[in-house]
Each structure stands twice: as structure tokens, then as C-alpha cells.
């Protein structure tokens, strides 16, 4: 946890977020959810 926090302080946080699988998996699921919502609506 400490290491994670330090990594965020040392590198540009936007770069870190955009290269993180923890960001892209939820984004992919969100897009899928929006498509499903459109299909249902």
C-alpha cells in the first residue's frame, strides 16, 4: 500500500492511471453496460 502511494507521487498520476489494467477493465465493463442499456432502452 505504501509502495502504491509512493508510485503515485513519483510519476505523473495520469500516466499511471491510463496504463493501469485496474482502470481499463472497469472502463470496458462500463462501455458494455452502456451498450446493454441502449439495447434494452
Amino acid at each position, binding site marked *: 500500500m505504501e509502495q502504491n502511494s509512493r508510485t503515485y507521487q513519483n510519476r505523473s498520476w495520469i500516466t499511471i492511471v491510463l496504463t493501469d489494467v485496474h482502470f481499463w477493465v472497469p472502463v470496458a*465493463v*462500463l462501455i458494455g453496460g452502456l451498450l446493454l442499456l441502449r439495447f434494452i432502452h
Partner: protein
Amino acid sequence: MDIALTPQNSTAVQDTSRARKLQVLGILSGFTAGAWLGAAEAPTKLVSIGVSPMVISLIMVVGVFLARWSLPALILGTSSVRADVRRAPHLIIWALLAGCLWAVANTLTIFAIRDIGLSIAFPLWNSNSLLGILWGFLFFNELRQAGWRRWAGVLGGALVMCVGAALLAIASSSEAPAAHSMRGVWAALGAGVLWGTMYIPYRKAYLTGMRE
């Protein structure tokens, strides 16, 4: 044989005690969240009298904003929030992502309730717990060092949830509105996937600097 109470031993005892208290607090929070979330779904029955699911979802989002942000901000001020944002700006991204997932999932649940009823839809979207376990294992190395007791607890709990959901769905299937039932099932399962994935940004925020 007596063990001398050295400062190191004392710190270890305090850490263990604190970890145990936090664990109990976490379990109680989980049960409370379940009860509150369950109760929060009741107003979504408004859909059965013809109110648009989008409107109901919007009203719920406004309610969340008022209860979770506006009123606490009025009472407690916003200084701690501003301090958090200055200290760890990336938390905004994780929060927005989690909020988007929650809002879309919430809207899907209302469509699901309209099409298949609350008693079938609710167990279906509660599959989010199983997905949460999977994401925790895959992405956050949770349960990797766990003993067989912990694994038995997690898998046993998951099995109980699945059996309960299946029994509820079977028991109430005769009461379900026939039209668009598959659409409702997809909406409920979609909501489960979105809510299960919402735990990723939550966990990430905790790991990268969100205060307890």
C-alpha cells in the same frame, strides 16, 4: 513459561487487536450496506406504475448526491475533501469511474425490476459478490495466501448465495411478467457485472491513498 511484555510484544498485541476490531467493523459495515441497499431498491417499484426507469434512476442519483455529499458538506465542511484531492488527485478518477458504474448498474436494475420483478431480479444482480471475489483474486492477490478455512468460508458463502438465488428465482418464476423477461434477466445480470466491477476502483482508491 512467562513471556516478558516488551515494547515489541506490546505493539504486536495492539496491531492484532486493531486488525481484529477493523475486521469486525468491516463485517458489520457489509451487513449494514446489504440491508440499506436492499431497502433502497423498494422505491424502484415506482416503475410498475409507469414512471420511466431513467427518471427513477435520476431521482436516486440526486438522492445519493444529497445524502452522501450535500448534507455532510453543509454540516462538516469540505476541507477534508479538498485536502484529499490535493494530496491524491488520482482519487477523482477512481471515484468518477465507480460512480459511473454504479449509476448505469442502478438504471439497469430498474429495467430488470420492470421486466421480471424485484424477487427474481434482486438475486440475479447479487451475482456481483461472486465477481467481486474473482476480481479480488485476479487483480489484488487476495486469498492467495489464505488457508483452507478461509477458502472454505468464501466458496461456501458463494455457493449458499448461488443456491439461494436459484431457489428464489425458481420460486418466484411463476409470478414474473412474461413479456420481455429475457431482457430483464440480461439487465439484472448486467447490473451484477457492473456492480461487481465497481469494487475495482474502490479497492484501487484504498490502495493508493484514500483515507479510511
